[in-house]
Protein backbone atom coordinates (compact mmCIF):
# COMPACT_ATOMS: atom_id res chain seq x y z
CA UNK A 1 0.00 0.00 0.00
CA UNK A 2 2.75 2.44 0.95
CA UNK A 3 5.92 2.16 -1.10
CA UNK A 4 9.54 3.02 -0.36
CA UNK A 5 9.03 6.53 -1.74
CA UNK A 6 6.37 7.22 0.89
CA UNK A 7 8.82 6.29 3.64
CA UNK A 8 11.49 8.55 2.12
CA UNK A 9 8.89 11.33 2.24
CA UNK A 10 8.14 10.54 5.89
CA UNK A 11 11.84 10.63 6.69
CA UNK A 12 12.11 14.04 4.98
CA UNK A 13 9.27 15.51 7.03
CA UNK A 14 10.82 14.22 10.26
CA UNK A 15 14.26 15.60 9.32
CA UNK A 16 12.65 18.95 8.48
CA UNK A 17 10.85 19.02 11.84
CA UNK A 18 13.86 17.99 13.92
CA UNK A 19 16.10 20.49 12.07
CA UNK A 20 13.54 23.20 12.80
CA UNK A 21 13.53 22.81 16.58
CA UNK A 22 17.29 22.34 16.75
CA UNK A 23 17.74 25.54 14.70
CA UNK A 24 15.79 27.45 17.35
CA UNK A 25 17.06 25.45 20.35
CA UNK A 26 17.17 28.57 22.51
CA UNK A 27 13.38 28.77 22.18
CA UNK A 28 12.66 25.05 22.20
CA UNK A 29 15.16 23.01 24.20
CA UNK A 30 16.64 25.46 26.68
CA UNK A 31 13.47 26.89 28.32
CA UNK A 32 12.18 23.54 29.66
CA UNK A 33 15.55 22.95 31.34
CA UNK A 34 15.46 26.38 33.01
CA UNK A 35 11.76 26.30 33.97
CA UNK A 36 11.95 22.80 35.38
CA UNK A 37 15.10 23.65 37.34
CA UNK A 38 13.05 26.43 38.99
CA UNK A 39 10.25 23.97 39.75
CA UNK A 40 12.70 21.62 41.44
CA UNK A 41 14.37 24.40 43.42
CA UNK A 42 11.15 26.13 44.54
CA UNK A 43 8.60 23.33 44.84
CA UNK A 44 10.99 20.49 45.40
CA UNK A 45 13.68 21.87 47.69
CA UNK A 46 12.29 25.01 49.35
CA UNK A 47 8.61 24.10 49.77
CA UNK A 48 9.02 20.33 49.41
CA UNK A 49 11.30 20.07 52.45
CA UNK A 50 8.44 21.44 54.58
CA UNK A 51 5.78 19.25 52.94
CA UNK A 52 7.52 16.07 54.03
CA UNK A 53 6.54 12.76 52.48
CA UNK A 54 3.82 12.03 49.94
CA UNK A 55 2.65 8.44 49.50
CA UNK A 56 5.77 7.24 51.27
CA UNK A 57 8.36 9.09 49.17
CA UNK A 58 9.92 12.56 49.48
CA UNK A 59 7.92 15.38 47.89
CA UNK A 60 10.74 15.98 45.42
CA UNK A 61 10.59 12.34 44.28
CA UNK A 62 6.80 12.56 44.11
CA UNK A 63 6.67 15.55 41.78
CA UNK A 64 9.55 14.46 39.50
CA UNK A 65 7.49 12.21 37.15
CA UNK A 66 4.78 14.86 36.84
CA UNK A 67 7.26 17.60 36.05
CA UNK A 68 8.92 15.47 33.37
CA UNK A 69 5.51 14.62 31.93
CA UNK A 70 4.50 18.28 31.98
CA UNK A 71 7.46 19.21 29.76
CA UNK A 72 6.76 16.26 27.44
CA UNK A 73 3.13 17.33 27.03
CA UNK A 74 3.78 21.03 26.44
CA UNK A 75 6.70 20.46 24.09
CA UNK A 76 5.02 17.77 21.96
CA UNK A 77 1.99 20.00 21.61
CA UNK A 78 3.73 23.30 20.99
CA UNK A 79 6.17 21.81 18.47
CA UNK A 80 3.44 20.64 16.14
CA UNK A 81 1.04 23.52 16.65
CA UNK A 82 3.69 26.14 15.90
CA UNK A 83 5.40 24.24 13.09
CA UNK A 84 2.20 23.32 11.26
CA UNK A 85 0.62 26.74 11.71
CA UNK A 86 3.82 28.42 10.56
CA UNK A 87 3.80 26.16 7.45
CA UNK A 88 0.19 27.20 6.83
CA UNK A 89 0.98 30.86 7.42
CA UNK A 90 4.01 30.88 5.12
CA UNK A 91 2.17 28.55 2.74
CA UNK A 92 5.12 26.16 2.77
CA UNK A 93 2.57 23.43 3.58
CA UNK A 94 1.87 23.59 -0.17
CA UNK A 95 5.24 21.90 -0.71
CA UNK A 96 3.69 18.76 0.75
CA UNK A 97 0.24 19.24 -0.73
CA UNK A 98 1.50 19.31 -4.33
CA UNK A 99 3.74 16.31 -3.77
CA UNK A 100 2.60 12.68 -3.63
CA UNK A 101 3.15 12.24 0.13
CA UNK A 102 0.19 10.21 1.45
CA UNK A 103 -1.92 12.15 3.95
CA UNK A 104 -1.17 9.57 6.64
CA UNK A 105 2.55 10.21 6.24
CA UNK A 106 2.16 14.00 6.47
CA UNK A 107 0.29 13.42 9.73
CA UNK A 108 2.83 10.89 10.99
CA UNK A 109 5.74 13.14 10.01
CA UNK A 110 4.46 16.06 12.07
CA UNK A 111 3.41 13.85 14.98
CA UNK A 112 6.74 12.03 15.14
CA UNK A 113 8.54 15.37 14.92
CA UNK A 114 6.53 16.52 17.97
CA UNK A 115 7.12 13.21 19.76
CA UNK A 116 10.88 13.52 19.22
CA UNK A 117 10.92 17.01 20.77
CA UNK A 118 8.70 15.85 23.63
CA UNK A 119 11.02 12.93 24.37
CA UNK A 120 14.16 15.01 24.02
CA UNK A 121 12.92 17.62 26.47
CA UNK A 122 11.76 14.78 28.73
CA UNK A 123 15.33 13.45 28.74
CA UNK A 124 16.73 16.96 29.38
CA UNK A 125 14.36 17.48 32.32
CA UNK A 126 15.19 14.01 33.68
CA UNK A 127 18.88 14.95 33.60
CA UNK A 128 18.03 18.18 35.46
CA UNK A 129 15.92 16.19 37.97
CA UNK A 130 18.81 13.81 38.57
CA UNK A 131 20.78 16.74 39.98
CA UNK A 132 18.18 17.13 42.76
CA UNK A 133 16.85 13.64 43.41
CA UNK A 134 17.85 10.03 42.95
CA UNK A 135 15.95 8.65 39.93
CA UNK A 136 14.61 5.12 40.36
CA UNK A 137 12.61 3.32 37.72
CA UNK A 138 9.95 0.80 38.71
CA UNK A 139 8.95 -0.29 35.21
CA UNK A 140 10.81 0.78 32.09
CA UNK A 141 8.10 -0.76 29.94
CA UNK A 142 5.26 1.30 31.40
CA UNK A 143 7.44 4.39 31.51
CA UNK A 144 8.28 4.19 27.80
CA UNK A 145 4.78 3.23 26.66
CA UNK A 146 3.17 6.04 28.64
CA UNK A 147 5.62 8.73 27.57
CA UNK A 148 5.44 7.66 23.92
CA UNK A 149 1.65 7.52 23.82
CA UNK A 150 1.24 10.78 25.72
CA UNK A 151 3.62 12.70 23.48
CA UNK A 152 1.89 11.20 20.46
CA UNK A 153 -1.51 12.26 21.77
CA UNK A 154 -0.48 15.86 22.41
CA UNK A 155 1.49 16.16 19.18
CA UNK A 156 -1.69 15.11 17.35
CA UNK A 157 -3.68 17.59 19.43
CA UNK A 158 -1.25 20.32 18.37
CA UNK A 159 -1.86 19.50 14.73
CA UNK A 160 -5.65 19.67 15.12
CA UNK A 161 -5.27 23.05 16.85
CA UNK A 162 -3.03 24.30 14.00
CA UNK A 163 -5.49 23.16 11.33
CA UNK A 164 -8.24 25.30 12.86
CA UNK A 165 -6.00 28.25 13.81
CA UNK A 166 -6.40 31.32 11.63
CA UNK A 167 -4.01 33.65 13.45
CA UNK A 168 -1.07 33.33 15.81
CA UNK A 169 -3.29 34.04 18.85
CA UNK A 170 -5.26 30.89 18.09
CA UNK A 171 -2.27 28.64 18.66
CA UNK A 172 -1.73 29.88 22.21
CA UNK A 173 -5.36 29.70 23.38
CA UNK A 174 -5.44 25.95 23.97
CA UNK A 175 -2.03 25.73 25.72
CA UNK A 176 -2.80 28.74 27.93
CA UNK A 177 -6.43 28.18 28.82
CA UNK A 178 -6.81 24.40 28.61
CA UNK A 179 -3.49 22.56 28.67
CA UNK A 180 -1.76 24.45 31.49
CA UNK A 181 -4.72 24.38 33.94
CA UNK A 182 -5.37 20.69 33.22
CA UNK A 183 -1.70 19.89 33.75
CA UNK A 184 -1.55 21.74 37.07
CA UNK A 185 -4.79 20.07 38.15
CA UNK A 186 -3.63 16.71 36.81
CA UNK A 187 -1.89 15.58 39.98
CA UNK A 188 1.60 16.78 39.13
CA UNK A 189 2.10 18.39 42.53
CA UNK A 190 -0.38 16.47 44.69
CA UNK A 191 -2.21 13.20 45.09
CA UNK A 192 -5.93 13.48 44.36
CA UNK A 193 -6.51 11.50 47.56
CA UNK A 194 -5.81 14.79 49.36
CA UNK A 195 -8.90 16.33 47.73
CA UNK A 196 -12.48 16.15 49.05
CA UNK A 197 -14.46 13.34 47.46
CA UNK A 198 -16.37 15.66 45.10
CA UNK A 199 -13.17 17.17 43.67
CA UNK A 200 -11.64 13.71 43.40
CA UNK A 201 -14.53 12.76 41.11
CA UNK A 202 -14.13 15.98 39.12
CA UNK A 203 -10.40 15.32 38.77
CA UNK A 204 -11.15 11.97 37.15
CA UNK A 205 -12.54 13.86 34.16
CA UNK A 206 -9.09 15.33 33.55
CA UNK A 207 -7.26 13.13 31.00
CA UNK A 208 -3.87 14.46 32.05
CA UNK A 209 -4.39 12.97 35.51
CA UNK A 210 -4.27 9.49 33.97
CA UNK A 211 -1.07 10.19 32.06
CA UNK A 212 0.75 11.74 35.01
CA UNK A 213 -0.27 8.92 37.30
CA UNK A 214 0.60 6.17 34.83
CA UNK A 215 3.98 7.81 34.32
CA UNK A 216 4.46 8.11 38.08
CA UNK A 217 3.71 4.40 38.35
CA UNK A 218 6.54 3.74 35.87
CA UNK A 219 8.94 5.57 38.20
CA UNK A 220 7.64 4.95 41.70
CA UNK A 221 5.39 1.91 41.43
CA UNK A 222 2.20 3.57 42.77
CA UNK A 223 -0.57 5.63 41.24
CA UNK A 224 -3.93 7.20 42.10
CA UNK A 225 -5.35 5.53 39.00
CA UNK A 226 -5.49 1.93 37.81
CA UNK A 227 -2.72 1.54 35.18
CA UNK A 228 -4.84 -0.44 32.72
CA UNK A 229 -7.56 2.22 32.90
CA UNK A 230 -4.98 4.95 32.26
CA UNK A 231 -3.43 3.16 29.27
CA UNK A 232 -6.84 2.30 27.83
CA UNK A 233 -7.99 5.90 28.11
CA UNK A 234 -4.83 7.28 26.50
CA UNK A 235 -5.28 4.84 23.62
CA UNK A 236 -8.92 5.85 23.12
CA UNK A 237 -7.91 9.52 23.02
CA UNK A 238 -5.12 8.79 20.54
CA UNK A 239 -7.41 6.87 18.18
CA UNK A 240 -10.06 9.59 18.37
CA UNK A 241 -7.73 12.53 17.87
CA UNK A 242 -5.60 10.80 15.22
CA UNK A 243 -8.72 9.93 13.20
CA UNK A 244 -9.93 13.52 13.47
CA UNK A 245 -6.54 14.89 12.39
CA UNK A 246 -6.43 12.48 9.43
CA UNK A 247 -9.93 13.48 8.35
CA UNK A 248 -9.08 17.19 8.53
CA UNK A 249 -5.89 16.77 6.49
CA UNK A 250 -7.51 14.48 3.92
CA UNK A 251 -10.38 16.92 3.43
CA UNK A 252 -7.90 19.79 3.24
CA UNK A 253 -9.76 21.75 5.90
CA UNK A 254 -7.90 24.96 6.63
CA UNK A 255 -5.23 24.19 4.05
CA UNK A 256 -6.99 23.85 0.67
CA UNK A 257 -9.51 26.28 -0.78
Amino acid at each position, binding site marked *: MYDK*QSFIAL*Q*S*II*IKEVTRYFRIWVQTLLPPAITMTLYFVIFGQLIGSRVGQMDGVSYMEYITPGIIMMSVITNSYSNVVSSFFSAKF*QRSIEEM*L*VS*PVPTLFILLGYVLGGVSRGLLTGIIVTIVAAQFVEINVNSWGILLVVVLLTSMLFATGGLVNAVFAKKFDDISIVPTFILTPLTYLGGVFYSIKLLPEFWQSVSLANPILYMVNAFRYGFLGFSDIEISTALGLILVFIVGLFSLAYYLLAKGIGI*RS
Partner: protein
Amino acid sequence: MSEKAIEINNLKKVYGKSLHALKGISFSVEKGDFIALLGPNGAGKSTTIGIICSLVNKTSGEVKVFDHSIDSELEAAKRCLGLVPQEFNFSQFETPLQIVVNQAGYYGVPRKIALQRAEKYLKQLDLWDKKDTPSRTLSGGMKRRLMIARALIHEPKVLILDEPTAGVDIEIRRSMWEFLTELNEQGTTIVLTTHYLEEAEQLCRNVAIINHGEIIENTSIKDLISRLDIETFILDVDKLPSEFPNITDVEFRQRDESSLEIDVAKTVSFNRVFEWLSQHNIQVMSMRNKANRLEELFVRMTETQSN
Protein backbone atom coordinates in the same frame (compact mmCIF):
# COMPACT_ATOMS: atom_id res chain seq x y z
CA MET B 1 -2.72 11.03 -32.09
CA SER B 2 -0.25 12.97 -29.96
CA GLU B 3 -0.01 12.34 -26.23
CA LYS B 4 -1.80 14.77 -23.92
CA ALA B 5 0.17 16.15 -20.99
CA ILE B 6 -2.89 17.76 -19.44
CA GLU B 7 -6.54 17.21 -20.26
CA ILE B 8 -9.24 19.31 -18.62
CA ASN B 9 -12.92 18.60 -19.20
CA ASN B 10 -15.82 20.72 -18.03
CA LEU B 11 -13.93 21.91 -14.96
CA LYS B 12 -15.98 23.97 -12.53
CA LYS B 13 -15.10 25.72 -9.31
CA VAL B 14 -17.54 27.57 -7.12
CA TYR B 15 -16.17 29.40 -4.08
CA GLY B 16 -18.76 29.65 -1.33
CA LYS B 17 -22.26 29.51 -2.74
CA SER B 18 -22.15 31.90 -5.63
CA LEU B 19 -18.64 32.80 -6.81
CA HIS B 20 -18.25 30.85 -10.04
CA ALA B 21 -14.49 31.04 -10.59
CA LEU B 22 -14.50 28.40 -13.35
CA LYS B 23 -17.62 27.82 -15.42
CA GLY B 24 -16.88 24.46 -17.02
CA ILE B 25 -13.62 25.01 -18.88
CA SER B 26 -12.15 22.41 -21.23
CA PHE B 27 -8.76 22.45 -22.88
CA SER B 28 -5.75 20.25 -23.32
CA VAL B 29 -1.99 20.61 -23.45
CA GLU B 30 0.05 18.44 -25.80
CA LYS B 31 3.14 16.66 -24.54
CA GLY B 32 6.19 18.86 -25.14
CA ASP B 33 4.11 22.00 -25.64
CA PHE B 34 4.97 25.44 -24.29
CA ILE B 35 1.61 27.02 -23.65
CA ALA B 36 0.59 30.35 -22.16
CA LEU B 37 -2.50 30.59 -20.01
CA LEU B 38 -3.51 34.21 -20.28
CA GLY B 39 -6.25 36.23 -18.69
CA PRO B 40 -6.87 39.33 -16.62
CA ASN B 41 -6.61 39.26 -12.83
CA GLY B 42 -9.35 37.11 -11.31
CA ALA B 43 -10.06 35.35 -14.61
CA GLY B 44 -9.50 31.88 -13.12
CA LYS B 45 -5.90 31.10 -14.14
CA SER B 46 -4.56 30.45 -10.64
CA THR B 47 -7.68 28.49 -9.70
CA THR B 48 -7.15 26.24 -12.74
CA ILE B 49 -3.50 25.71 -11.81
CA GLY B 50 -4.45 25.18 -8.15
CA ILE B 51 -6.87 22.42 -9.13
CA ILE B 52 -4.37 20.70 -11.44
CA CYS B 53 -1.79 20.73 -8.61
CA SER B 54 -4.23 19.73 -5.79
CA LEU B 55 -4.06 23.01 -3.93
CA VAL B 56 -7.68 23.81 -4.70
CA ASN B 57 -10.58 21.35 -4.49
CA LYS B 58 -12.62 21.32 -7.71
CA THR B 59 -16.40 21.51 -7.65
CA SER B 60 -16.82 19.22 -10.66
CA GLY B 61 -15.16 18.18 -13.91
CA GLU B 62 -12.21 16.08 -14.84
CA VAL B 63 -8.46 16.71 -14.85
CA LYS B 64 -5.94 14.24 -16.21
CA VAL B 65 -2.16 14.55 -16.19
CA PHE B 66 -0.49 12.16 -18.63
CA ASP B 67 -3.71 10.14 -18.52
CA HIS B 68 -3.69 9.92 -14.71
CA SER B 69 -6.96 11.28 -13.32
CA ILE B 70 -6.52 13.44 -10.23
CA ASP B 71 -9.60 11.69 -8.83
CA SER B 72 -8.41 8.10 -9.08
CA GLU B 73 -4.61 8.31 -9.57
CA LEU B 74 -3.71 11.48 -7.72
CA GLU B 75 -0.23 10.40 -6.63
CA ALA B 76 0.76 9.35 -10.16
CA ALA B 77 -0.58 12.65 -11.52
CA LYS B 78 1.34 14.62 -8.88
CA ARG B 79 4.62 12.89 -9.78
CA CYS B 80 4.32 14.30 -13.32
CA LEU B 81 3.88 17.88 -12.15
CA GLY B 82 6.18 20.61 -10.91
CA LEU B 83 4.70 23.90 -9.73
CA VAL B 84 6.21 27.36 -9.47
CA PRO B 85 3.47 29.33 -7.71
CA GLN B 86 2.78 33.02 -7.95
CA GLU B 87 3.66 33.79 -4.34
CA PHE B 88 6.68 32.71 -2.35
CA ASN B 89 5.61 29.60 -0.48
CA PHE B 90 8.70 28.23 1.17
CA SER B 91 9.87 28.49 4.75
CA GLN B 92 11.69 31.79 5.09
CA PHE B 93 13.93 30.27 7.76
CA GLU B 94 15.25 27.35 5.73
CA THR B 95 18.16 27.52 3.33
CA PRO B 96 17.77 26.90 -0.43
CA LEU B 97 19.59 23.58 -0.05
CA GLN B 98 17.24 22.41 2.72
CA ILE B 99 14.19 23.55 0.74
CA VAL B 100 15.03 21.70 -2.47
CA VAL B 101 16.39 18.56 -0.77
CA ASN B 102 13.29 18.27 1.46
CA GLN B 103 11.06 18.78 -1.57
CA ALA B 104 12.88 15.96 -3.38
CA GLY B 105 12.25 13.79 -0.33
CA TYR B 106 8.49 14.47 -0.49
CA TYR B 107 8.60 12.98 -4.00
CA GLY B 108 10.47 9.95 -2.72
CA VAL B 109 13.87 10.88 -4.15
CA PRO B 110 16.59 9.33 -1.93
CA ARG B 111 18.67 11.91 -0.06
CA LYS B 112 21.93 11.11 -1.87
CA ILE B 113 20.36 11.66 -5.30
CA ALA B 114 18.49 14.70 -3.97
CA LEU B 115 21.76 16.32 -2.94
CA GLN B 116 23.26 15.70 -6.41
CA ARG B 117 20.20 17.16 -8.13
CA ALA B 118 20.10 20.10 -5.73
CA GLU B 119 23.66 20.96 -6.72
CA LYS B 120 22.78 20.65 -10.43
CA TYR B 121 19.68 22.87 -10.33
CA LEU B 122 20.97 25.41 -7.83
CA LYS B 123 24.07 25.83 -10.01
CA GLN B 124 22.00 26.12 -13.20
CA LEU B 125 19.89 28.80 -11.57
CA ASP B 126 22.87 30.68 -10.08
CA LEU B 127 21.93 29.92 -6.48
CA TRP B 128 24.68 27.52 -5.46
CA ASP B 129 26.72 30.17 -3.62
CA LYS B 130 23.56 31.00 -1.62
CA LYS B 131 22.73 27.39 -0.78
CA ASP B 132 23.32 27.81 2.97
CA THR B 133 21.85 31.30 3.32
CA PRO B 134 18.44 31.64 5.03
CA SER B 135 16.01 32.09 2.17
CA ARG B 136 14.40 35.19 3.71
CA THR B 137 17.61 37.09 2.90
CA LEU B 138 17.49 36.27 -0.83
CA SER B 139 16.46 38.90 -3.37
CA GLY B 140 13.09 38.63 -5.15
CA GLY B 141 14.73 37.26 -8.31
CA MET B 142 16.64 34.65 -6.32
CA LYS B 143 13.48 33.56 -4.52
CA ARG B 144 11.72 33.08 -7.89
CA ARG B 145 14.66 31.01 -9.16
CA LEU B 146 14.66 29.00 -5.95
CA MET B 147 11.03 28.07 -6.58
CA ILE B 148 11.96 26.93 -10.10
CA ALA B 149 14.79 24.78 -8.72
CA ARG B 150 12.42 23.33 -6.14
CA ALA B 151 9.80 22.54 -8.81
CA LEU B 152 12.38 20.74 -10.96
CA ILE B 153 14.05 18.69 -8.24
CA HIS B 154 11.92 15.61 -8.93
CA GLU B 155 12.35 16.13 -12.70
CA PRO B 156 8.67 16.46 -13.62
CA LYS B 157 7.29 15.95 -17.12
CA VAL B 158 5.16 19.09 -16.82
CA LEU B 159 6.30 22.36 -15.31
CA ILE B 160 3.60 24.87 -14.40
CA LEU B 161 4.71 28.43 -13.76
CA ASP B 162 2.28 30.98 -12.36
CA GLU B 163 3.67 34.40 -13.25
CA PRO B 164 7.28 33.37 -12.70
CA THR B 165 8.84 36.65 -13.81
CA ALA B 166 6.58 39.04 -11.87
CA GLY B 167 8.73 41.72 -10.27
CA VAL B 168 11.95 40.37 -11.76
CA ASP B 169 14.42 42.68 -13.52
CA ILE B 170 14.94 42.46 -17.28
CA GLU B 171 18.30 40.70 -17.12
CA ILE B 172 17.07 37.93 -14.83
CA ARG B 173 13.85 37.67 -16.83
CA ARG B 174 15.83 37.08 -20.03
CA SER B 175 18.01 34.45 -18.37
CA MET B 176 14.88 32.73 -17.04
CA TRP B 177 13.43 32.74 -20.56
CA GLU B 178 16.58 31.08 -21.89
CA PHE B 179 16.46 28.50 -19.12
CA LEU B 180 12.79 27.67 -19.75
CA THR B 181 13.28 27.47 -23.53
CA GLU B 182 16.15 25.04 -23.02
CA LEU B 183 14.08 22.98 -20.59
CA ASN B 184 11.22 22.81 -23.10
CA GLU B 185 13.63 21.78 -25.87
CA GLN B 186 14.77 18.91 -23.63
CA GLY B 187 11.17 17.65 -23.54
CA THR B 188 9.52 19.23 -20.52
CA THR B 189 5.98 20.43 -21.19
CA ILE B 190 5.58 23.96 -19.87
CA VAL B 191 2.42 25.82 -18.89
CA LEU B 192 2.97 29.48 -18.14
CA THR B 193 0.71 32.20 -16.89
CA THR B 194 1.95 35.71 -17.31
CA HIS B 195 0.83 39.30 -17.57
CA TYR B 196 3.77 40.12 -19.83
CA LEU B 197 2.34 39.29 -23.23
CA GLU B 198 5.71 39.84 -24.82
CA GLU B 199 6.85 36.91 -22.67
CA ALA B 200 4.06 34.68 -24.00
CA GLU B 201 4.83 35.74 -27.59
CA GLN B 202 8.55 35.08 -27.15
CA LEU B 203 8.33 31.75 -25.36
CA CYS B 204 5.10 29.96 -26.14
CA ARG B 205 3.82 28.07 -29.15
CA ASN B 206 0.20 27.94 -28.01
CA VAL B 207 -2.10 30.03 -25.93
CA ALA B 208 -5.32 29.60 -23.97
CA ILE B 209 -7.10 32.78 -22.96
CA ILE B 210 -9.35 32.59 -19.94
CA ASN B 211 -11.76 35.31 -18.90
CA HIS B 212 -14.55 35.32 -16.29
CA GLY B 213 -13.96 31.60 -15.73
CA GLU B 214 -14.33 30.62 -19.38
CA ILE B 215 -11.85 29.72 -22.09
CA ILE B 216 -12.40 32.31 -24.81
CA GLU B 217 -9.56 31.20 -27.06
CA ASN B 218 -7.28 28.20 -27.38
CA THR B 219 -4.99 28.27 -30.37
CA SER B 220 -1.42 28.83 -31.52
CA ILE B 221 0.27 32.18 -30.91
CA LYS B 222 0.94 32.34 -34.66
CA ASP B 223 -2.74 31.94 -35.48
CA LEU B 224 -3.72 34.48 -32.88
CA ILE B 225 -1.37 37.11 -34.19
CA SER B 226 -2.45 36.44 -37.79
CA ARG B 227 -5.91 37.61 -36.77
CA LEU B 228 -4.60 41.05 -36.05
CA ASP B 229 -5.94 42.96 -39.08
CA ILE B 230 -4.65 46.42 -38.23
CA GLU B 231 -1.33 47.43 -36.73
CA THR B 232 -0.48 50.85 -35.38
CA PHE B 233 2.99 52.32 -35.90
CA ILE B 234 4.66 55.41 -34.54
CA LEU B 235 6.95 57.27 -36.93
CA ASP B 236 9.39 59.92 -35.70
CA VAL B 237 9.75 62.42 -38.52
CA ASP B 238 11.86 65.51 -39.21
CA LYS B 239 8.76 67.61 -40.01
CA LEU B 240 5.02 67.15 -39.97
CA PRO B 241 2.93 67.17 -43.16
CA SER B 242 0.49 70.07 -43.64
CA GLU B 243 -2.25 67.65 -44.61
CA PHE B 244 -2.78 63.90 -44.35
CA PRO B 245 -3.10 61.68 -47.43
CA ASN B 246 -6.15 59.74 -48.44
CA ILE B 247 -4.81 56.18 -48.77
CA THR B 248 -7.29 53.33 -48.54
CA ASP B 249 -7.04 51.37 -45.23
CA VAL B 250 -4.39 53.74 -43.85
CA GLU B 251 -5.14 56.36 -41.25
CA PHE B 252 -2.73 59.11 -40.24
CA ARG B 253 -2.81 61.01 -36.95
CA GLN B 254 -0.48 63.59 -35.49
CA ARG B 255 0.93 62.33 -32.23
CA ASP B 256 3.03 65.33 -31.19
CA GLU B 257 5.32 67.93 -32.76
CA SER B 258 7.64 65.35 -34.27
CA SER B 259 5.79 62.10 -34.64
CA LEU B 260 2.90 60.50 -36.47
CA GLU B 261 0.66 57.61 -35.53
CA ILE B 262 -0.43 55.47 -38.48
CA ASP B 263 -2.98 52.63 -38.54
CA VAL B 264 -2.16 50.29 -41.42
CA ALA B 265 -4.37 47.39 -42.51
CA LYS B 266 -2.53 44.12 -43.06
CA THR B 267 -3.62 44.16 -46.71
CA VAL B 268 -1.80 47.42 -47.45
CA SER B 269 1.85 47.60 -48.38
CA PHE B 270 3.80 49.90 -46.13
CA ASN B 271 5.69 51.14 -49.21
CA ARG B 272 2.69 53.31 -50.11
CA VAL B 273 3.08 55.18 -46.82
CA PHE B 274 6.79 55.71 -47.36
CA GLU B 275 6.20 56.79 -50.98
CA TRP B 276 3.79 59.47 -49.88
CA LEU B 277 6.13 60.70 -47.12
CA SER B 278 9.02 60.76 -49.56
CA GLN B 279 6.99 62.76 -52.12
CA HIS B 280 6.40 65.35 -49.41
CA ASN B 281 10.10 65.46 -48.41
CA ILE B 282 9.43 64.04 -44.97
CA GLN B 283 12.29 61.99 -43.53
CA VAL B 284 11.41 59.07 -41.22
CA MET B 285 13.96 59.09 -38.40
CA SER B 286 12.67 55.99 -36.60
CA MET B 287 9.66 53.70 -36.51
CA ARG B 288 8.12 51.35 -33.91
CA ASN B 289 4.98 49.40 -33.08
CA LYS B 290 2.66 51.37 -30.85
CA ALA B 291 1.95 48.38 -28.58
CA ASN B 292 2.78 44.74 -28.30
CA ARG B 293 0.70 43.05 -30.98
CA LEU B 294 -0.51 40.27 -28.76
CA GLU B 295 -1.39 42.77 -26.07
CA GLU B 296 -3.66 44.66 -28.47
CA LEU B 297 -5.43 41.48 -29.45
CA PHE B 298 -5.72 40.31 -25.85
CA VAL B 299 -7.29 43.57 -24.71
CA ARG B 300 -9.67 43.50 -27.65
CA MET B 301 -10.76 39.89 -26.98
CA THR B 302 -11.27 40.28 -23.24
CA GLU B 303 -13.09 43.60 -23.70
CA THR B 304 -15.39 42.08 -26.32
CA GLN B 305 -16.27 39.26 -23.95
CA SER B 306 -16.88 41.64 -21.06
CA ASN B 307 -19.19 43.76 -23.20
